[in-house]
């Protein structure tokens, strides 16, 4: 009978701990989630821009540009992300400040958010370069040739033909990168950025309710993924609008 009385008590304790306002820690977790998503969005966006430039550089660039892009993707993909994050975060901010000091400016305090976005975006860019390069190569060559034959400038061709045509081939890879970005934000805990994982660790450490808080964080990550899948599915359906479904063809 004792058990029966314990469970509701534990449940109410759990709810109190998770409640969004103090003494609950739910608010901290949600704030951490928002920070994580901000960084993931920023990094993914930056990765897309770098990736597009990188893919074009690798495909159409001069030998020098191709080599530079090759060195970038090789090194970034070879070094563990955690090492890169520590390196870029500490060494990167230090480097910027040294340059500023040399140029006669004052040292600046780089916000964790901006640093996190730049560091993860730099990593994402290397992977996005390869995803986009593969997708551009998958476009039927005739469509590019038709665009050239009708006098499209390189920029117009990229905007109107190449990017929309490669999207169906790029989306599965890009969706992977997005999900990786949401989870890689956890690595920023090592540099003290208060994203979801760090907030969770603090909540758990303070209350000793480790299981509860890490489960809660896991659920939040899972919900992020499920919601992302929903959005990606929509985008993919739109991007594949001109393509008969694979299932029908089979």
């Amino acid at each position: 009978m004792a058990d029966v009385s314990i469970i509701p008590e534990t449940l109410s304790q759990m709810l109190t701990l998770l409640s969004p306002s103090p003494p609950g820690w739910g608010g901290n977790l949600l704030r951490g989630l928002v920070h994580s998503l901000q960084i993931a969005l920023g990094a993914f966006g930056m990765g897309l821009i770098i990736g597009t430039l990188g893919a074009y550089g690798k495909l159409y660039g001069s030998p020098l540009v191709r080599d530079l892009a090759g060195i970038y993707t090789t090194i970034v993909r070879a070094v563990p992300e955690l090492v890169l994050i520590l390196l870029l975060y500490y060494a990167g901010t230090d480097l910027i400040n040294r340059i500023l000091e040399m140029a006669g400016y004052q040292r600046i305090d780089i916000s964790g958010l901006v640093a996190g976005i730049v560091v993860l975006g730099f990593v994402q860019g290397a992977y996005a370069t390869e995803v986009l390069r593969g997708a551009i190569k998958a476009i039927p060559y005739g469509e590019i040739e038709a665009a050239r034959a009708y006098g499209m400038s390189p920029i117009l061709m990229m905007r109107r033909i190449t990017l929309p045509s490669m999207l169906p081939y790029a989306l599965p890879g890009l969706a992977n990168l997005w999900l990786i970005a949401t989870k890689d934000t956890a690595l920023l805990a090592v540099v003290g950025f208060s994203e979801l994982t760090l907030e969770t660790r603090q909540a758990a450490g303070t209350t000793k309710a480790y299981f509860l808080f890490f489960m809660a964080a896991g659920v939040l990550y899972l919900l992020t993924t499920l919601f992302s899948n929903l959005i990606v599915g929509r985008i993919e359906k739109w991007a594949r609008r001109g393509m008969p479904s694979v299932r029908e063809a089979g």
Partner: protein
Amino acid sequence: MTVSDAVLTDPLQPQSAEQAEAIHVWNLHKRFGSLEVLKGVSMTARDGDVVALIGGSGSGKSTFLRCINFLENPTSGVIRINGEDIEMVSDGVGGQYPANRRQIERIRSRLGMVFQNFNLWQHMTLLQNVIEVPVHVLGVKRDEAIAVGEQLLERVGLSAKRDVYPAYLSGGQQQRGAIARALAIQPRVMLFDEPTSALDPELVGEVLKVIADLAKEGRTMLLVTHEMKFAREVASHVMYLHNGIVEEEGPPEDLFGSPKSERLKQFIRTVS
């Protein structure tokens, strides 16, 4: 008048001499590595001409067509389109490329190219394909382009398919759509690169009919084809290419009726 004009002006069609030159090519060479595909081909197409290029595979006829809108850069030779000489610069390794990208883009946007494999843009509906170049390259207002595009789709018999994506159309429908896309830019010259070679036999007729109608209304066209009967019917001038040179050329009735060169006789026998 240049040397090539004197050679190429067709005495049987004196009226064409009054027409303006749409395309003038002189002594065109194209080399892929050590392989010389074109060894000095010259041609003049005046407004209203329908020039058919025939020849076996590897004769250089498609390469010649693709050099005209610089999908391939000719190794040497002169190309003049709409009276405008294309400036070329040497690439330092024996080839050359257009000096001015914008000039090439401007010229391309007035040459309506129709490809063997249609090459419609798969992420656009048929109507979107047709209005794409007018709206985004030529700067036509969208609603005007749509009005023209709808008329053109009607002409090629595809009004009902305007909002359909190319992947859902038959080869013949895609090629007719591609012809509408070429017409939408109000081309000075239409370039056809084996337009029926990728089609199932029963779909060839519908595409040839559209091309024949265009020829009848006096459109200037360059046509690379394997359809000898068709070339004979629609062309005003036929060029037979063999191993990168013009082996024989003239009006279709002469070329097909009384071929002079032994190779052409043999070619006509094998393909008909």
